[in-house]
């Protein structure tokens, strides 16, 4: 586990040669950023080993080597969203250093503990918060280092600091033209305490960002050198396979391990309160195969009778029961009584698993006074606390080495795999790598909640909605994560996308009732929004069509006075060829959402064959992230978010039978592959303003509605529940 911290010269040089071609011409809304060959690096093993810190640190974030190469530490997680490139770019903006000489590694969560949260209040990557939630902090880090380097130079020359400036890792005394390199100033700068922290730049003052910049981690993801948690190798480690009770909340009753007598390399059968694990030497396969020969008995209680059908009935029945009010504008009931026409529809969305490509895993080395954990986690600081609790050691004795994360989407912050690995290590007293099978990863997921929404709307003489009511039944993510929430309030995820919809409907009421089950539910890319935008954007489409109005124009009218929303909607419609003729059996659908303070509108073009087969041919995305650091990675996130949402829209469903998830592997939990992937055009249009928007989630919610609305345009069939594959779309089918 002690690989080189610096990427090989060879691969870095190659990267510089090839990086210049990587930026695509996909943007509108920013000036033509120069295509530069600048390229920072990150090692294939992105963590440091916490054994020693380099001698030439300016502070916990930045070290400057004698050759002017600059180490910048990245304090959150890299799970594909590109923030390990974006945040150091922001530091570079303030530090005025040479990006081609920047190298990046993960900040240590252990050091964060020991040094009073020197990396900020949270190391978590979630909620599209990594960039916008760190923006001020990392800008301050860069600005402070720059001012201390300038102060060190000014002291050396005995001149006022105000006469000096910094650029490209050099401080210049402007009147005399004298220069000192950052590397010559680093030792002195480290000792300087500024009287006051410098002001950070406003976006208008940025000169380095926004700029499309190739991701620093890509070169390690094309040659197999990127280290994921799964790839940890610790001398003397053994391998563990686990199966937890398939019915969440159930307990292990008994397991007969006599079947494993004589099997090669079995170290131990570890019985945990709700799981059984087999530990073996040499290969994970040994442990996995042995585990498959055990037939544990579980105590599942009443939850063992729960099914999806019953849950759906319960949720739909609860639609008519008392609810908590999340929003109540105007007088919905009075408006309904005077409405020209009433519309009603119920929408339903199922449980979903996160299904990252890298199944959950953790490798631990538990010693009497030190615990090392290798894991890809969305929250290395929270993993540290959880590991301390599970091991009985002090948090300061726990070293979490965060790896490249093989997909998170909200799943990788629960630390259940870390706690299991520690429990197993306590028994076998050796370093252990615990790996979940794909089936375990699916069935022991904490799902995107199941939800039903009942809509009722009244339209006026012009066909436009004058009042609407939305009643939600779903389960509580906060209850699952153990966060308390006032009983008289609706938790945001339960109504996200509905209560904060952008439309000016004077009479709007949004209510919710929570019905928790034994199944834990969790944050899943764009929580709440990912399912409620399907519902509200489909329902609005129903009203538009029934009123004989253009769904795009209806939205446009309802968004009057909100120029940022209208701009995004117009861009999607224009670039998505809204209104242009299509062959029979094809259609376009439009949808818009707000998520994490970003706005996203999409137009999907869909063909439905007489056999009922749906092909999404083209998706046009207009995204307003308010501000941008790296437009290249933002576009990549938008493209990926569309595919993520499309898998859910077309195929995604976790079915519950006898209290357990039916689906296990990718043969039953289908995901979009290349052949089903539409052409995606992304148009970025940052509008500025007070807040920065998140970019990793906002393009997931609209796709299901855009596709379902396109299917209606193509076939006249309205999809009111997901996935679409559950519906018979053959021509002639009811």
């Amino acid at each position, binding site marked *: 586990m002690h690989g080189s911290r610096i990427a090989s010269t060879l691969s870095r040089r190659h990267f510089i040669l090839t990086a210049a071609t990587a930026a695509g011409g996909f943007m509108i809304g920013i000036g033509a950023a120069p295509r530069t060959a600048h390229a920072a690096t990150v090692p294939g093993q992105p963590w440091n080993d916490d054994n020693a810190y380099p001698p030439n640190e300016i502070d916990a974030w930045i070290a400057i080597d004698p050759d002017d190469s600059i180490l910048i530490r990245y304090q959150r997680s890299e799970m594909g969203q590109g923030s390990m490139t974006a945040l150091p770019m922001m530091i570079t903006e303030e530090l005025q250093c040479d990006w081609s000489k920047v190298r990046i590694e993960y900040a240590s969560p252990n050091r964060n503990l020991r040094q009073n949260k020197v990396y900020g209040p949270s190391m978590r990557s979630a909620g599209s918060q990594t960039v916008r939630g760190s923006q001020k902090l990392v800008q301050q880090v860069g600005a402070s280092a720059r001012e201390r380097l300038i102060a060190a130079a000014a002291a050396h020359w005995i001149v006022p600091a105000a006469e000096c400036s910094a650029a490209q890792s050099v401080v210049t005394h402007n009147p005399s033209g004298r220069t000192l390199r950052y590397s010559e100033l680093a030792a002195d700068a480290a000792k300087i305490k500024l009287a006051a922290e410098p002001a950070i730049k406003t976006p208008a003052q940025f000169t380095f960002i926004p700029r499309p910049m190739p*991701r620093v981690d890509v070169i390690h993801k094309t*040659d197999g050198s990127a280290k994921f948690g*799964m790839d940890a190798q610790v001398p003397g480690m053994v391998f563990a396979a686990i199966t937890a009770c398939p019915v969440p909340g159930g307990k292990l009753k008994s397991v007969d391990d006599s079947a494993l007598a004589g099997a090669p390399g079995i170290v131990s059968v570890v019985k945990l309160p709700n799981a059984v694990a087999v530990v073996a030497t040499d290969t*994970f396969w040994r442990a996995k195969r042995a585990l498959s020969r055990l037939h544990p008995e579980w105590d599942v209680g009443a939850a063992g009778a729960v099914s999806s059908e019953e849950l759906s009935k319960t949720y739909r029945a609860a639609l008519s029961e008392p609810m908590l009010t999340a929003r109540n504008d105007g007088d919905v009931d009075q408006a309904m009584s005077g409405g020209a026409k009433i519309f009603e529809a119920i929408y339903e969305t199922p449980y979903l698993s996160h299904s*990252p490509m890298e199944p959950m895993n953790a490798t631990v080395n538990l010693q009497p006074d030190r615990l090392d954990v290798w894991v890809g986690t969305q929250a290395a600081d929270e993993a540290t606390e959880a590991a301390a609790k599970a091991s009985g050691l002090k948090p300061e004795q726990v070293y979490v080495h965060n790896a490249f994360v093989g997909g998170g989407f909200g799943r990788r912050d629960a630390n259940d795999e870390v706690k299991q690995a520690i429990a197993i290590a306590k028994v076998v007293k050796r370093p252990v790598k615990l790996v979940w099978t794909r089936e375990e990863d699916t069935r022991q997921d904490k799902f995107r909640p199941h939800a039903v929404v009942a809509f009722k709307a009244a339209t006026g003489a012009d066909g436009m909605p004058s009042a609407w009511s939305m009643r939600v039944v779903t389960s509580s993510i906060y209850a699952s994560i153990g966060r308390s929430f006032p009983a008289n309030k609706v938790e945001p995820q339960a109504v996200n996308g509905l209560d904060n919809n952008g439309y000016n409907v004077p009479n709007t009421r949004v209510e919710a009732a929570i019905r928790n089950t034994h199944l834990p539910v969790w944050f899943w890319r764009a929580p709440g929004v990912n399912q409620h935008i399907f519902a509200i954007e489909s329902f609005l489409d129903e009203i538009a069509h029934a009123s004989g109005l253009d769904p795009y124009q209806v939205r446009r009218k309802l968004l009057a006075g909100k120029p940022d929303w209208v701009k995004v909607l117009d861009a999607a419609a224009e670039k998505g060829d809204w209104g242009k003729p299509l062959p029979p059996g094809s259609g376009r659908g439009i949808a818009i959402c707000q998520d994490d303070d970003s706005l996203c509108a999409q137009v999907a073009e869909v063909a439905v064959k007489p056999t009922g087969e749906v092909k999404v041919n083209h998706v046009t995305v207009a995204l307003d992230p308010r501000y941008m650091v790296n437009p290249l990675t933002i576009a990549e996130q938008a493209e990926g978010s569309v595919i993520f949402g499309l898998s859910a829209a077309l195929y995604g469903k976790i079915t519950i039978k006898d209290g357990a998830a039916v689906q296990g592997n990718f043969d039953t939990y289908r995901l979009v*592959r*290349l*052949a089903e*992937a539409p052409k995606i055009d992304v148009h970025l249009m940052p509008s500025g303003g007070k807040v920065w928007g998140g970019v990793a989630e906002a393009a997931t919610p609209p796709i299901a509605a855009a596709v379902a609305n396109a299917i209606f345009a193509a076939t006249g069939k309205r999809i009111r529940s997901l996935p679409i594959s559950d519906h018979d779309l053959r021509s002639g089918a009811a």
Partner: protein
Amino acid sequence: MITIEVNGTSKQIDIEPDTPLLWVLRDIVGLTGTKFGCGIAQCGACTVHIDGKPMRSCSVPIGALDGKKITTIEGLSPDNSHPVQRAWIAEDVPQCGYCQSGQIMATVAFLKEFPAPTDAEIDANITNICRCGTYERLRRAIHRAADLIKA
């Protein structure tokens, strides 16, 4: 004892013969670029070449491979210089990156058979799953790699 050649180096493997090649590569040989995604040949994250043919190594027992030549992502080039790797870097394809070793190995073999592929040929032959949804750039990279190989 089974003898295989991995990226040009001979390896003696002493393990149960039904052990899938994937776990031999990862846990015994120590090459972790080949990934475990599903274990049932569905996702393709474990794709390697066996005597030049793309195979999903999670579903190939080591006992069937005596004398075979295996190429993994680590053996594709010493310096990321294979045209498919260069195309992947140029198009900035990977996000989380976990599936990309398999995507690249599948593409290398595919382009040998289809040196100037159409989109339909790509659709029919590149069936690996990418959960991050990098397909837009992945498709561009396949075409770019074909051009690089021709050049």
